[in-house]
C-alpha cells in the first residue's frame, strides 16, 4: 500500500513548506513536531505490510522516533524559546513569501534529482526520494535564511527528518541498537543546542544570531 506512504510523505512536504512560510516561532516548532510524528509513522506504513522486517523492530523505531522527534525535542525548543523571550521571527534574511516560493522551487529541484537518481532496490513509495530531498533542502533553506537560533535548530531538525526519510530505504537492515544510537545522538545534539541557546539568551538577552558574528577575518 504505497498509497498510504505517499500520503504521509505528501503531508510531510506540506508541513515543511508551512514551516518555511510561517513566521511565528511557536508555529514552526509545533509544525516540526507534527512532521516528526508523521515520519514516526512512516516505517510502520512502509514496511509492516512487507513483513520481511520484524514488527517489534518497526514499532520500537516508530515509538523512539515519535518520542524524540515529536515529543522531547519540540518541548525542549519551546522551553528555550520561552526562556529567551522570543515570540516572532525578526525580519529574516529572505522574506517569508520569497522563502515560500524558494521552497516550492526546491521541491521541483528535488523531483528532478529523484529522476536523475534512479532508486535502487524495490520502489516502496514513489514520493520517498523527492520528499527526502525536499525536506533536506527546505531544512537548509531554514538554516540559511533565518536569524533566530531556535528557527535554525528547527531547520536542522527538518534536515535531519529528510535524512530519516532516506533512512527508510534500508529500515531494518541496521541493528536496532545503532538506529536508537543515531536517534540518541540527535536528541543529545538538540539538547546541547538548547543549552547553547539558553546561554546565548543569557549572554546577549535575545537569541538573534546577528549578535554572533564578532569572530571574523
Amino acid at each position, binding site marked *: 500500500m504505497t498509497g498510504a506512504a505517499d500520503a504521509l510523505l505528501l503531508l510531510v512536504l506540506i508541513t515543511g513548506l508551512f514551516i518555511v512560510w510561517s513566521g511565528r516561532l511557536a508555529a514552526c516548532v509545533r509544525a516540526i513536531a507534527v512532521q516528526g510524528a508523521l515520519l514516526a509513522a512512516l516505517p510502520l506504513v512502509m514496511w509492516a505490510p512487507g513483513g520481511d522486517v520484524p514488527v517489534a523492530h518497526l514499532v520500537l523505531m516508530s515509538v523512539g522516533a515519535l518520542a524524540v522527534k515529536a515529543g522531547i525535542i519540540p518541548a525542549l525548543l519551546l522551553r528555550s524559546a520561552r526562556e529567551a523571550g522570543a515570540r516572532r521571527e525578526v525580519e529574516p534574511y529572505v522574506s517569508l513569501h520569497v522563502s515560500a516560493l524558494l521552497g516550492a522551487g526546491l521541491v521541483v529541484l528535488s523531483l528532478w534529482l529523484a529522476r*536523475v*537518481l*534512479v*532508486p*535502487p*532496490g524495490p520502489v516502496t513509495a514513489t514520493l520517498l526520494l523527492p520528499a527526502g530531498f525536499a525536506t*533536506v533542502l527546505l531544512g*537548509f533553506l531554514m*538554516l540559511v535564511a533565518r536569524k533566530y*537560533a531556535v528557527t*535554525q535548530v528547527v531547520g*536542522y531538525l527538518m*534536515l*535531519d527528518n*529528510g*535524512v530519516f526519510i*532516506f*533512512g527508510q*530505504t*534500508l529500515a*531494518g*537492515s*541496521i541493528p536496532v541498537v*545503532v*538506529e536508537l*544510537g*543515531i536517534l540518541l*545522538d540527535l536528541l*543529545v*545534539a538538540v539538547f*546541547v*543546542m538548547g543549552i*547553547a541557546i539558553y*546561554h*546565548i539568551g543569557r*549572554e*546577549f538577552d535575545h537569541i538573534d*544570531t546577528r549578535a*554572533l*558574528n*564578532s*569572530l571574523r*577575518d
Partner: protein
Amino acid sequence: MEHLAALVLVPALLGVAALFVRGTRLQVGALLAGALLHLVLTGAAWVRRPDGYADYLRLDDVGMLFLSITSVLFAAVAVYAVGYLTGPTHDEPARLYRFVPYLLLFLAAMTLVAVTRHFAVLWAAVEATTLSSAPLVYFYRRGPALEAAWKYLMICSVGIALALLGTFFLGAAEAAVTTGPPGLALTDLMRAAPVMPRGWLRAAFVLALVGYGTKMGLVPLHTWLPDAHSQAPSPVSALLSGALLNCAFLGVLRFFQVCLASGDAAFARTLLLLLGFVSIAVATAFLIGQRDFKRLFAYSSVENVGILAVGVGLGGAATFGAMLHAVNHSFAKAGLFLLAGNVLRSYGTTDAGEIRGAVRQLPLSGPLLFALFLAIGGLPPFGLFMSEFTIFQSAIGDGRTRLGLLFVALLAVAFLAMAGVLLPMLQGESNRPPATARERALAVVPPLLLAAAVLALGVYLPRTLDTLLHAVAGVVGGTS
C-alpha cells in the same frame, strides 16, 4: 573484542564518573588515569592486534594508525592540561569538572571512530566527538567562546547529518545489489562495491566528503575551525587540530575505500584534489598578515588537511606521504598549540601584533616555538619536509608537473606568510617585564617531546611505523 571495548569504555566510564565528582585531585587523577590506560592499551594493540566483533569493532591498519596518533597526543595534552588548568590562570579560576569529563568522553568518541569499520557506528562516533567537544570550546564562558561553540555545533551537526545521508545512500546502493539486508559494514560494502549503481555510490561519496569534510576543515566547509580553535583552551585546540581532524579524515577515507573497491575512484580523487588545493590556497590567504596567532595555527591546520586530501587524491607514492604527513602534522600542530598556550599565559593576548621577543621572554617555549614553526613550514630536517616532499615529488614523478608546481609554490607562500606573523613575535627585545618564575616543566615537556618526535621522524623512520604506513597507503589507494 574486550580489548577494543576497553579502549572505548575506559575513557568513557571515567568521563561519566568525572561528571559527578568535583574535587580537583579526583579530576586530575581521572584524566591522567584515562590517558595512561589508553596509551597502555594502544601499546598493547601494537604488540598483538586485538580481534574484533564483526565490523562493529575492528582495528585494521588504518584505524591502528589514527588510534596511535590520538592516544599519544591525548597523553601529551593531558599532562599539559594539568599544569595549564591548575597553574596560575590569567583569567578565571579553572573549573576542572567542566573540562575533564568532556575531554575523556571526547577521547572515547575519537577512539570509537578509529576502532570501527561499520559506517553507522562511525557516524555516531563522529557526531559524538562534536557533542563532547562543544562544551570544551565553550570552556571560557565568554561571548566569543559561546559564538565559536555555537557555530561549531551547528555547522558540524549539519555536516554530520549530510554524512549520515551519505551513509544511507551507500546502504541503499548496497541494498540494490545484495540479496540479504544491507549491512553498512566496510567488508560487505567493499565486496558489493564493484556492482553498486554508480550514481548512488557517487552521491554517497559526495555527501560523505562534504559531511566529514566539514568536520575535517576542508575549504569552503572549514568556517567553524578558526573560531573554535582560537576560542578553545589551548590544550583543546591542540586535540582538535591534532586528533579530531584526523578522525574526520578517517571517515572520508572509509568511503574512499569503498570507491576504490568499486573501481570507480577517479572521480573521488578529482574531488579530493579539488577541495585539497582550494583548502591550501584559501588557508594560505588567511595566513598572510593574520593577527591572532591561534587563528594562524588554525588556518595552518586547514592548509595541512588540504595537503592530506591532495596526497590521497594524487595516489601512488603521494598516499604514503599523506599518511606520514598526518602523523607529522598532528604532532607538530599539537605542540604549536600547547606552546601558543604558554605564550598566551605569559603575554595575556593572542594578538601577534602586541607580542615581541618571545624567545627572550620564554627561554624554553620561545626557541621551541621557533623550531616547531620551522617544522610546520616544511623545512628539513623535520618530518614535514619529508612527507610534503614525498607528495610533491610523486606528483612530478607521475607527470602531473602543474599540480606539483602549484603545490610547492603554495606551500612556500604559506611558510613565508607564517614567518611574517611569527618572526616579529619571536625576535627582538621582549615588550613585557622579564618573567619572575622559570617556566614550569609541565608546560614545556609535552611540546618538547612532540617536537622531538617530529624531528626524529624527519631523520629516521622506525621500521614498524614504516611498514604500517605502507600498509595503510596500500589500503587507501597508494602504492604500498
